[in-house]
C-alpha cells in the first residue's frame, strides 16, 4: 500500500463572497501571535544554530581533528532541527530571493546535488571556499543537503585529518552562507521590519496584507504546503508503495541519519505555529476542537518518527520501521484532511475548486 499522497490546497478569502462567515473568526492579534509566538523565536534559533555551525566549521579547518569534525556534525544536526521548524514559514522572508531553495534545495530526483558537489570537489573550484562567491553558485551546491554530503559523504573522513583542506574550506563557506541567509530571514521577521509590520498590522494601505483574512490565508497555506512537502517530497518517495519498493536514499539527509529528525521537526514546527495562534483559546468550542485534533495528529506523527530507533536506511527496509513510517504518513494525511475540510471553515476561509497551482 502506498503510504499516502497529500493534495494541494488553495483557499480563497474574498469578503464579498456570500458564503463566507459574516464575522471574522480570528482575532485582531492573529498575525502578531504568530510573529511573537513562533516566527521571531524560531528565526532567532535558526540564526544562532547556524552561527554555531559556522564557528565549528572555522574551528575544524583551523585545527582538524575527529573531535572537531564531530563537533561540526553535531552543530549541523542542531541546524537541521531548527531548520525543520522554521521551514514551515514558507512565505514572506523565507521565499523571497529563493532563500528556501538556497537553504534546502529539495527534492532532487535527478541527483543534481551529488553530481554538482562532486564536480566542485573534483575541480577544486575556488569560488566554493568563500560564502560570498558560493552564494553565487548553483543553489544545489550551497544548501544543507550539499553540506551534509561534505560532512558525511565519501571522503568526509579526511576533514578530521586535515588531508582535504579544500573540502573543509568549502564546508566552512557553506556554513557561513547558511548563517548569512538565516540572519537575513531573522532581520526580516524582526519587530519594526516592513514584513513584520504588514503581517502583524495588516491594513488597507498595506500592499502585502490588507486584512487578517489574508494573514490567515497565509497561515493555512503554510500548514498545507508543509504537510504536502513533508509527505510528497520527503517521506513518500523514499517510502515507496511498500516495504519492498522502499528507496531510503531518496529521503533527504539519509547519509547523516537525520531524516526522521528533519521530518519530525517540520511537524513540531507546525505544532508550534498552530499553538502560537492561540486559536484554541479564541475560537468557539467546535472550532477549537478542530485545532486540538490537528495538533494531536501533528504530535502523533512527530512522535512516531522520533520513536524509530533503527538507522534511517535500515528503517525503510525493516517491517517495524516501515510500519511507523506508514503510521506517520497516515497521520500526516489526517492532519492534511483536517486543514482542508475543517480548519479553513473553522476560521472563516473558503476552499477554491479552481485555484490550484499549475492548472
Amino acid at each position, binding site marked *: 500500500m502506498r503510504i499516502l*499522497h*497529500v*493534495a*494541494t490546497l*488553495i483557499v*480563497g478569502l*474574498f469578503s*464579498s*463572497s*456570500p*458564503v463566507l462567515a459574516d464575522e471574522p473568526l480570528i482575532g485582531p492579534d492573529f498575525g502578531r501571535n504568530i510573529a511573537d509566538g513562533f516566527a521571531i523565536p524560531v528565526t532567532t534559533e535558526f540564526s544562532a544554530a547556524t552561527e554555531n555551525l559556522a564557528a565549528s566549521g572555522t574551528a575544524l579547518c583551523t585545527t582538524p581533528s575527529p573531535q572537531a569534525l564531530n563537533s561540526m556534525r553535531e552543530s549541523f544536526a542542531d541546524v537541521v532541527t531548527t531548520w525543520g521548524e522554521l521551514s514551515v514559514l514558507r*512565505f*514572506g522572508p523565507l*521565499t*523571497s530571493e*529563493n532563500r528556501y*531553495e*538556497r537553504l534546502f*534545495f529539495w*527534492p*532532487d*530526483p*535527478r541527483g543534481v546535488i551529488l553530481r554538482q558537489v562532486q564536480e566542485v570537489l573534483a575541480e577544486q573550484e575556488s569560488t566554493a571556499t568563500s560564502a560570498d562567491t558560493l552564494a553565487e553558485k548553483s*543553489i544545489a551546491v550551497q544548501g544543507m543537503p550539499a553540506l551534509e554530503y561534505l560532512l558525511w559523504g565519501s571522503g568526509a573522513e579526511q576533514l578530521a585529518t586535515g588531508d582535504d583542506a579544500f573540502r573543509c574550506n568549502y564546508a566552512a563557506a557553506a556554513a557561513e552562507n547558511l548563517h548569512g541567509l538565516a540572519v537575513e530571514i531573522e532581520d526580516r521577521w524582526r519587530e519594526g521590519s516592513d514584513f513584520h509590520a504588514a503581517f502583524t498590522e495588516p491594513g488597507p494601505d498595506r*500592499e*502585502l496584507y490588507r486584512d487578517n483574512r489574508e494573514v490567515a490565508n497565509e497561515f493555512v497555506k503554510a500548514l498545507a504546503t508543509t504537510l*504536502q*512537502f513533508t509527505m*510528497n*517530497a520527503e517521506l*513518500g*518517495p523514499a517510502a515507496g508503495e511498500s516495504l519492498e519498493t522502499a528507496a531510503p536514499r531518496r529521503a533527504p539527509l539519509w547519509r547523516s541519519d537525520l531524516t526522521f529528525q528533519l521530518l519530525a521537526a517540520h511537524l513540531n514546527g507546525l505544532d508550534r505555529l498552530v499553538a502560537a495562534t492561540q486559536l484554541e483559546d479564541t475560537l468557539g468550542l467546535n472550532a477549537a476542537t478542530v485545532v486540538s485534533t490537528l495538533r494531536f495528529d501533528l504530535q502523533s506523527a512527530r512522535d512516531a518518527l522520533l520513536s524509530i530507533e533503527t538507522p534511517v536506511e535500515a528503517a525503510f527496509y525493516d517491517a517495524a520501521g516501515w510500519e511507523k513510517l506508514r503510521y506517520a504518513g497516515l497521520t500526516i494525511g489526517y492532519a492534511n484532511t483536517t486543514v482542508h475540510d475543517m480548519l479553513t471553515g473553522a476560521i472563516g476561509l473558503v476552499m*477554491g*475548486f*479552481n*485555484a490550484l*497551482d*499549475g*492548472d
Partner: protein
Amino acid sequence: MRSTAIDRRTFLALAASALGQTSLGWASELPSQALYIGARRVGQNYEAAIIDERGKDQLVLPLEDRGHSFAIDAEGNRAVAFARSPGRFAVLLSLDGSTEPVALPVDPERHFFGHGAFGSNGRLLFATENDYDAGRGVIGVYDVAGGNRRIGEFTTGGVGPHEAILMPDGRTLVTGNGGILTHPDYDGIDLNLADMRPSLAYSDIETGDLLEVATLPPALHQLSIRHLAVSADGAVWFGCQHQGPRTERPPLIGRHRRGRDIELFFAPPDVLRQMDNYVGSIAVDRSGTVVAAASPRGGMIAYWDATTGRYLGMQQLADGCGIAPLGEQSLLSTSGRGAIAVTGPDRFESLRPEDRTAPEWDHHLRLVI
C-alpha cells in the same frame, strides 16, 4: 467506463427543446445555436457537460476522474477530454452522442498536462505531455482517424508544457511551456522553482520541427506561461501564473507575434493584486478583439483590447475560471461554485447563480461550434 451516450436524434431533440425555452428575455447574440463543453464535478463524480449559450445542459458524459480541458475538432463533431495534470487519461468523445467514448492509449512513461488540439483535418490529435524521467515537455501525437494510436511525439522546446493550440494557418502549434519541472513521484512539488525558464514555442505539426521559441526577460523567469488564445489579428495572447513571492506583482497577460519580442500588459494595481499572481484561463470574444483572463484565485475576470493592449475592465465571479467566446464583447463564463454568467468588459448577466448543490465547473469552458 460507464456510458450515457444518447442517440443523435435524442440529442438534437434535447438541444432544440432547451433552445426553445430560452427565447424569453434573451437578446440573441448568435444566429445559430452555440454549444460549449466543460468539465465539472457533481458530488463525488466527474463529468464532461455540453451546455448551450444559456447554460442549459445538452449532453452529459461521465469521466473516470477529474477532467481539465478539451480539444475539439473543426466541425464540432468530436472532442477529447483530458484529465487534470498529472493526467492518466484522455477520452475521445462523440459530441452528438452517437458513439461510445473511447479512451486514447497512454504511454506509461508520460502523463498529460490537461490540454491538446486537433490538427486542421481532424485526423491527428496533439497533446501536451510530460516526459518526466527526462524532464522535458513533449507533444504526443495520436491518430484519431484510424485506430486511435499514439504514433509519435516531438519536443516542446521547454519543460512543463501546458496549453497548446493550433494557429489559424492550420499547421503551426503554439505551446505555453510553463517552465515548471514536475515528476509524478513528487505530487504537487515544483522541482526547479529557482531555475524556471518558461517560454512560448511554435512547432510545425507536419514535421515536428521547433520553429520559434519566445522567452521572457530573465527577471521574469518565474512567470509561468500557461494558457493561450489567438486574437482576430493572429497574435497569441497568454496568461501567466507567477511562482515567485507575493511581494512581486508582475504583469500576468502577454501577447506575442512571430518574430517579435513578447509584450506584457499590466492591469491597474488593485486589479493586478486581486488576480493574486494567477490566471487560470484565457479566451477571446467572438470578434477576437477582446481578450479575457480569468483568475479563480481572485474571483474575477479581466479584459483587454486585443488591438491596443488597453485594459478594459473586470467582473467579479467567485472561483470563476471557465470562459469561452459568446458574442461581441461577451463571454460565457462558469465557476467552481456552480455559477454561469454572461460576462464582458461592460456586462454581467447571471444565468445561474452560485449554488452549493450545482455542478462545480472546472477550469476550462470551450466553444464547440
